[in-house]
């Protein structure tokens, strides 16, 4: 009897959850469907859900007309580049703070976090002028530097919380066995740290890919990533829904896939370890 009730309950919850889930997901689903329509079908009334002539034409046109691949390449370079350089300087810092903490380590961590609280508009004007004067506007190098600095506090924090979980006794044991600092790093610490580093990498790629304040303000063409590419569709003459949908689908698909794997990391990274 009890099982019967809970089974019925489970069915009701399933229906409810799927209905709400689909409702929330609908704008994305609709974008994906629209990307396979002709422009005529895209604005047809009543809307066509599944029964229309499916076409891949929009994807080709988007590439041909607005050179999608160049923007996508920029997005990849900016996301990977900023993540790479941030990790290079963040890993030693997080390692040192987790394993050789001093009196000031906590204050230092809090200070790093506080830099993330500064609103971008507080730095926009000087950064824009510096970029202009040094010829960095619309260059990949310049944007990579900004994105790296932007996400560095999150990266250090996330690495720190992961490194903190590696038991210190293991290090002591290896030291007792006569391992040098270099060996300790290479054979003991690195294998244990890799999952944490991978998680951090994943989260940072997502954040850098979607960053849409600095990329919109500092790029126009040469270094412009997909955020800027999509924004260029906001002008009335660029308004073709099927093509906009194809461009949007291509811009969000990689991140939706990465996000699938990164749900836990999102929580940890964006709450600075306050919720695990």
């Amino acid at each position, binding site marked *: 009897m009890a099982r019967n009730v809970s089974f019925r309950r489970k069915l009701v*919850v*399933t229906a409810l*959850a*799927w209905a*709400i*889930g*689909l409702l*929330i*997901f609908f*704008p*994305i689903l*609709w*974008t994906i469907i*629209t990307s396979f329509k002709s422009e005529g079908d895209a604005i047809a*009334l009543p*809307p066509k859900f599944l029964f229309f002539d499916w076409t891949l034409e929009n994807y080709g046109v988007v590439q041909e007309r607005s050179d999608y691949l160049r923007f996508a390449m920029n997005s990849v370079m900016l996301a990977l580049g900023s993540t790479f350089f941030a990790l290079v*300087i*963040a890993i030693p*810092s997080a390692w*040192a703070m987790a*394993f*050789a903490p*001093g009196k000031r380590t906590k204050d230092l*961590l*809090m200070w*790093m976090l506080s*830099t993330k*609280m*500064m*609103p*971008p*508009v*507080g*730095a*926009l*004007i*000087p950064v824009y002028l510096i970029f202009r004067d040094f010829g960095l506007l619309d260059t990949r190098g310049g944007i990579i530097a900004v994105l*790296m*600095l932007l996400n560095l506090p999150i990266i*250090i924090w996330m690495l720190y919380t992961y490194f903190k979980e590696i038991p*210190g006794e293991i290090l002591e044991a290896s030291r007792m066995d006569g391992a040098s*600092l270099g060996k300790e790093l290479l054979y003991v610490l690195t294998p244990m740290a890799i999952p944490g580093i991978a998680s951090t990498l994943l989260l940072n790629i997502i954040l850098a890919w979607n960053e*849409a*304040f600095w990329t919109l*303000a500092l790029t126009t063409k040469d270094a412009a990533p*997909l955020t800027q590419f*999509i*924004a260029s569709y*906001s002008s009335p003459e660029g*308004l073709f829904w099927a093509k*906009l949908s194809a461009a949007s689908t291509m811009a969000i698909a990689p*991140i939706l896939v990465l*996000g699938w794997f990164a*749900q836990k990391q999102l*929580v940890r990274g*964006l*709450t600075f*370890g*306050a*919720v695990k």
Partner: protein
Amino acid sequence: MATQQTRTLGKLAVSPSVFALLMWMIVPLSMTIYFSFLRYNLLDPNPICSLMTPGALLDAENRCLAGFSNYSYFLTDPAFFKAMGNSLKLVGWVLAISVAGGTLLALLLDQAFYGRGFVRIMMIAPFLVMPTVSALVWKNMMMNPVSGFLAYLFKLVGLQPIDWFAHFPMTAVVIMVSWQWVPFATLILLTSLQSLDEEQKEAAEMDGTPPLSYFWYIVLPHLIRPMTVVILIQTIFLLNVFAEIYVTGTGGRAGNLPFLVYQYGLIANDIGGASAGGIIAVILANIVAIFLMRMIGKNLDA
């Protein structure tokens, strides 16, 4: 336990990050503060203020010191009040919607049902969508008054479709931004729900606790902390919403503080005024940040 050697090495390892962040924080901020006291317009590189006001102070590059006039100008600009109001409306509404919605969705996702993993990723997906995409998809395919999906639904039930961006730009932006941030709240609250003590759950079940009082006395107290974290973190991000307003062209009526600063600086080229606005935004964000930092700091000790 740390030896002298590791300690020196530790300092060495931390220094690049500290240096980079120090530069990132101090250089632009001090420049912004400095600019905010200058009469500095990019279109008018050699202002003639010195001729107009004899004895006016000039800096090394012959720019005219403006005292607090940029601040008084920005703070008395009617656009500032509007932008400030819009910022507060946006933050307030999205917070209310995402905490309430996030709690309900997290409770739902915490139940046992078929296809839970898939439903969860569907609900989280909007948070992963790049802001410019979400802005254009909502503006066109969802909210367009003629061919948008919402217009179709309105007509289906016999209502007059709403031209969201023409008549209710603020509501449209709130809907759009909430769509992105409810999933974030859901994700955080769900993570926290799943750490709720199993034994507590069982005990409540055995005692026959009614669902509402179970929620009120056991679940809600457990969620207060993550809710606070959600509110603080979202406030930081929501105060900085920019792309959604910029791309949908709602800056005129639903523009917030960041958009106004952008307008002052990169559209009107008034560097002094924009800098004063930037500093005001920094002060506002810092008020929120202090509370957030306290919470996270407490957690660091535990």
